[in-house]
């Protein structure tokens, strides 16, 4: 079915824009960049229609990539139902965000560079999703990490942007280290990296080994999907252009960890301990990030922490055994979070770069389309029935209750906070009086059309029944339907919305009055639990200082330079002594020649002549 064409189209777009983009007019760059991704989407749809119901995986082998001993890595793509969902999300949302970027990036420098990177990202993301062995998945995994780094640091003349790019890259290295170890261990244990070979054999291995593999994979997933303790890079990653935040750091790349864990479900179902760890990390991240989101003033930071929090929900779903619920939430989150980011981008665009919500307000009337579409996303993420977030979040929470009731309750509290901070952001931005100085202007159709499509998807996306579609793919634990649980979580979300409405619309001064008695807690949360400071003190500073004192001053400047300089010094010393022979006096040279000849002759004489 020519699966190779799916990633190759964006790659071609990257090649054309990357090599010739500097000389091409914007219209051509747009056509190439957007066209390649839209064509990829069309090809995905065509392929999936041609493949029928996908009860079994459809695999295509292109060539053997690595053949060494018993290691045999093929460049193989495969499509099953999980891949189908991911392909549609990646290319679909990707197409919309590419179209949006035409409008958003219209006045930015480095236009062709932006689209080239974006296309390259699409290529690697599609390789990641289509890969049918762990190494190929890792290729895509690293590739999207690279593109993430390039796009976070897109404004490379700004120090904070390049720092954020470095942070993302370095933190991801930690996760990737775990992932690499997992790949090595998988190969050592199962003798192969192909999903089709590894997964049937997991049942035969001891639980300790499978759990270790599962936990190592989880380290990788925590890095890529911004979970505790490696989530710190994602909020900083908002330094990149807003479409990048929407595409890479909300809808697609950061969900790669969830995808990878779901893909590796045969490993996890034989490692209940590892699954429990996933669930705990997920619910803890969801809760912690939500608390931080409550107190942020930068509109993108709110949604960044919201993304971390929602990714935590997905991990909670996967960890609780509800893999399909995790993927379900992945999809609905891609809809509404991409929309929230694109909407906030539209707001920022309207205000010529203003991101602080304290300088917004009352934008409802000035940019009505952005407001209307973002509202759709807000009700979806808040879990208001019957919009998309309601279905997926409840699927996860019900499974969490089945797994461990305390996780359910923490999830419910988080759902309330989610509703609160999203609507706080909405009210601060769109309601009340305008507090800024710029003159807001509504965005053009290139930005509004994707917003509108995503708004429809956010509202109605819940009716795309992913759990039913993936029913046979994942082993489904029998979870009893419980209407009370659903009612509790919906109520929690509605209370959050109501609180936000009271505090930010009805009585605008109330938020400050509410905060002042708990100043300590507020400061703690506002400063993101001081996690960055903690990491700085415990990890970054020791590493940097250790590198400076031991590796640089000691090993490099002392030892390595010492060897090199010492060699030079010895040569200089010997040369300094030998220099005395070089007197410039021809007769002394002649004497040396004579002396040498005599010594040689005498030596030959002692040795008994030349024979």
């Amino acid at each position: 079915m020519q699966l190779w064409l799916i990633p190759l189209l964006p790659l071609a777009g990257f090649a054309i824009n990357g090599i010739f983009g500097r000389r091409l007019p914007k219209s051509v760059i747009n056509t190439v960049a957007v066209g390649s991704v839209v064509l990829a989407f069309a090809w995905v749809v065509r392929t999936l229609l041609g493949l029928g119901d996908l009860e079994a995986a459809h695999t295509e082998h292109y060539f053997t990539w690595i053949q060494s001993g018993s290691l045999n890595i093929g460049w193989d793509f495969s499509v099953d139902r999980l891949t189908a969902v991911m392909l549609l999300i990646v290319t679909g949302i990707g197409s919309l965000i590419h179209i949006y970027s035409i409008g958003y990036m219209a006045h930015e420098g480095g236009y062709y560079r932006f689209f080239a990177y974006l296309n390259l990202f699409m290529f690697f993301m599609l390789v990641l999703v289509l890969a049918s062995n762990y190494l190929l998945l890792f290729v895509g995994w690293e590739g999207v990490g690279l593109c993430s780094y390039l796009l976070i640091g897109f404004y490379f003349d700004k120090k904070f942007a390049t720092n954020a790019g470095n942070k993302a890259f370095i933190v991801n290295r930690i996760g990737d280290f775990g992932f690499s170890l997992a790949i090595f261990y998988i190969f050592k244990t199962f003798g192969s990296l192909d999903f089709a070979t590894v997964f049937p054999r997991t049942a035969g291995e001891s639980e300790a080994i499978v759990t270790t593999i599962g936990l190592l994979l989880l380290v990788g997933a925590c890095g890529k999907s911004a979970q505790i303790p490696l989530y710190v890079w994602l909020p900083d990653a908002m330094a990149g252009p807003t479409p990048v935040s929407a595409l890479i750091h909300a809808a697609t790349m950061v969900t790669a960890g969830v995808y990878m864990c779901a893909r590796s479900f045969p490993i996890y179902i034989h490692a209940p301990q590892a699954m429990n760890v996933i669930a705990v990390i997920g619910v803890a991240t969801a809760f912690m990030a939500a608390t931080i989101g409550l107190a942020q003033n930068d509109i993108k930071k709110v949604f960044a922490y919201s993304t971390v929090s929602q990714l935590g929900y997905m991990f909670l779903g996967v960890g609780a055994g509800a893999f399909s619920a995790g993927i379900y939430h992945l999809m609905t989150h891609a809809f509404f979070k991409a929309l929230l980011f694109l909407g906030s981008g539209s707001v920022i665009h309207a205000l010529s770069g203003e991101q602080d919500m304290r300088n917004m307000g009352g934008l409802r009337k000035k940019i009505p389309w952005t407001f209307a579409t973002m509202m759709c996303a807000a009700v979806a993420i808040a879990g208001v029935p019957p919009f998309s977030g309601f279905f997926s979040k409840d699927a996860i929470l019900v499974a969490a209750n089945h797994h461990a009731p305390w996780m359910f309750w923490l999830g419910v509290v988080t759902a309330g906070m989610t509703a609160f901070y999203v609507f706080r952001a909405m009210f601060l931005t769109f309601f009340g009086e305008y507090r800024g100085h710029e003159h807001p202007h509504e965005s053009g159709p290139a930005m509004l059309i994707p917003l509108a499509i995503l708004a429809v998807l956010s509202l109605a996306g819940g009716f795309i029944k992913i759990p039913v579609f993936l029913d046979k793919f994942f082993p489904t634990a029998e979870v009893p339907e419980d209407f009370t649980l659903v009612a509790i979580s919906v109520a929690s979300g509605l209370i959050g919305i109501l609180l936000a409405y009271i505090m930010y619309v009805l009585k605008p001064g109330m938020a400050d009055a509410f905060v002042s008695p708990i100043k300590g807690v507020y400061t703690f949360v506002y400063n993101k639990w001081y996690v960055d400071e903690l990491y700085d003190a415990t990890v970054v500073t020791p590493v940097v200082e250790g590198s400076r004192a031991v590796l640089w001053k000691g090993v490099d400047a002392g030892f390595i330079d010492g060897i090199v300089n010492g060699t030079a010094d010895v040569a200089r010393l010997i040369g300094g002594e030998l220099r005395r022979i070089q007197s410039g006096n021809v007769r002394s040279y002649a004497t040396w020649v004579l002396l040498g000849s005599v010594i040689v002759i005498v030596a030959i004489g002692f040795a008994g002549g030349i024979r």
Partner: protein
Amino acid sequence: MGAVPIFWYLSLSAVLFTLGVAGFVFRRNIITVFMSIELMLNAVNLSFITFSYRWKQVDGHLLAFFVMVVAAAEAAVGLAIILTVYKNRQTLNIDEIDTLKN
């Protein structure tokens, strides 16, 4: 010819060579030094011819011719250098031509 023993030829060669060495090391005039070199070369040539005569082999003659050719070439180059040195420095004292020291 046969009446003169080889010893005499070799002794003469050794004496000439020693004179050449002494002139080379102790004289200050470049041309004298140069002539001393020629003297050494010819002393060696004499030895070659002697041994060639003694062992009835042509190798010695051959080498003597080689030495002559090299000596001729060397004389041409050497005299050219001496001329140039004199033009530049107005001296032929070898102790004053020590630019290469240290």
